[in-house]
């Protein structure tokens, strides 16, 4: 044994890790398999079928909710990424200045509060504004989603920026590039992977949200998650499995992209 002594071995750890990965994936596999179940009940296997995908596709509520989710996710991700990029540029690679700590705290504040509390707070605030202005459009959801997506978008952008060598920007300035040109030609291209990662993270976070949307949405503004929650509360059909499977596929695609982008060094 002495000759095989492994520095990194800890008894039982591999078994626990294996259990973890199995436990993480087993429910997802079951969910996907039942999406192809021909039976109407979710408790028995009635053979392979795509009928639940078909029925979800023909369900206008599902389509509307999906479109709204994507619309909201795209707008919120775009806005939050732009704002987070600006904020990251303003809060990194600098000596401490008055207000810097405040900015860190403010940007990360949405992460520090349970969603239910933010949801309630927005319900109160936005219901007041609705009464005053009479406006009940998508703006409220966009504002809410943008706000809680900012800290997530900020994360990878800031990380990328902090690893970027300021000397490169100095070199550009030394070679007659004005501050704007330095930003366009050096900072932005080098920051791009971080921005893309932030954009995707924000999009997924927006797409994922149930609680805040549930409290903020006006009538007829169901996103896919809030629609699904309503359905699950009423009783489950394999249609939910089908929608979930499609959603899952999207997640896998986005993670894969995210992985390739963030792994790509310089």
């Amino acid at each position, binding site marked *: 044994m002495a000759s095989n002594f492994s520095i990194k071995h800890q008894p039982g750890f591999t078994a626990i890790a294996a259990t973890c990965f199995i436990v993480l994936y087993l429910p997802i596999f079951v969910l996907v398999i039942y999406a192809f179940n021909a039976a109407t009940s979710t408790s028995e296997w009635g053979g392979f079928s795509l009928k639940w995908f078909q029925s979800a596709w023909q369900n206008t509520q599902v389509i509307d909710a999906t479109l709204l989710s994507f619309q909201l996710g795209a707008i919120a991700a775009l806005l939050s990424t732009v704002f987070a990029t600006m904020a990251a540029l303003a809060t990194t690679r600098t000596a401490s200045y008055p207000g810097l700590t405040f900015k860190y705290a403010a940007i990360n504040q949405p992460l520090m509060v349970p969603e239910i509390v933010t949801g309630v707070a927005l319900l109160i605030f936005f219901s007041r504004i609705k009464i005053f202005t009479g406006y009940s459009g998508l703006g409220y959801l966009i504002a809410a989603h943008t706000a809680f997506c900012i800290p997530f978008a900020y994360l990878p952008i800031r990380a990328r920026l902090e690893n970027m060598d300021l000397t490169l920007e100095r070199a550009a*300035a*030394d*070679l*007659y590039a004005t501050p704007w*040109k330095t930003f366009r030609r050096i900072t932005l291209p080098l920051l791009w992977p971080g921005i893309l990662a932030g954009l995707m993270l924000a999009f997924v976070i927006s797409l994922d949200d149930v609680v805040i949307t549930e409290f903020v949405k006006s009538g007829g503004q169901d996103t896919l998650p809030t629609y699904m929650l309503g359905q699950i509360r009423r009783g489950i059909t394999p249609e939910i499995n089908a929608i979930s499977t499609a959603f899952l596929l999207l997640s896998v695609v986005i993670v894969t992209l995210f992985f390739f982008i963030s792994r790509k060094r310089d």
Partner: protein
Amino acid sequence: MPDKPDRNAIEVVNVSKIFGSGEGQVAALDTVSVSIRENEFFTLLGPSGCGKTTLLRLIAGFDFPTAGEILLYGQDIAPLPPFKRPVNTVFQSYALFPHMTVADNIGFGLEMLGKPKDQIKARVAEMLKLVKMEALAGRRTSQISGGQQQRVALARALAPQPKVLLLDEPLSALDYKLRKEMQIELKRLQHETGITFIFVTHDQEEALTMSDRIAVMSSGKILQVGSPRDIYDRPAERFVADFIGESNFLKADMVGVSGGRATVKLSSGVEIPATLPEGFNPNGKVTIVVRPEHAQLSAAGPAASLSGTVENIVYLGTDTHFHLRLAGGEAFIVRRQNSRGASDGIVQGGQVGLLIGNDAAQVLKD
């Protein structure tokens, strides 16, 4: 170049740079003045933290001086941002743009200056040829070796034909052999382009080999400016003597001065001539410096300037170091070049005499 006109490319006038404020205030540069001539290879030499890089950054425009002026051909450039100064830098880390090719890196400065495309292309080709990198023009900068990156960094900084080229320890990341090659290469480039080079290093050997003139810096001040030979043979201060090469320091008494040369009396009572730093006329006790290769060993006796015991003999291949303990208690090292076969009978523990020649000693300011 004997016909070189003595125009100053850069004049640093009473420049101070203070970092921090209040209690934590640190003067990185303390009223420094120095003039750098046109077409000269000028080196700022000193240990880390001496202010040499700060001075370079002030000339480049990455920092602004707290006080003083920096004149480029007579015009104060201190308040200008870096992109408005006709001065380029070769960075210690090279700072090549990783998302661009070698050629794009070299052409960047000209592009920013708004030069026409064909002119940029021609100049880039010329630069590639100058640094012998023609074959790698299309490569990413991450795909070339450290030495090649160094050449690209040089070409990039030279391409816009700056009035002054600043080099911030550019050779420190290279291995010994490559560094030696690049020293000669840099000297060649400076000669061919005729651009004024300001070179920052902490490596005394590098400074001595390459420079026309050297400024030795310590604690935010310039201690001495001179040719490599001046700096080595006639260090004005103990720090300079100590930082560059090996030195023996001896206590002595001033006897007299005539024709800019001093006569000093050693502890043994023997009087020897010594050179004086410019404008320095001391009295009484002084310290003199003697380089180890400027003293000779002799038989102990009245003919010797000093005498002592051999404490240690260190054989170094090309030469041998004799570590002596002088009669007055001071340590003294003599370096002697080796030749084959000669055995001179000097042994550890033996008594020897020490000869300090007419041109060997220099009086120090402190």
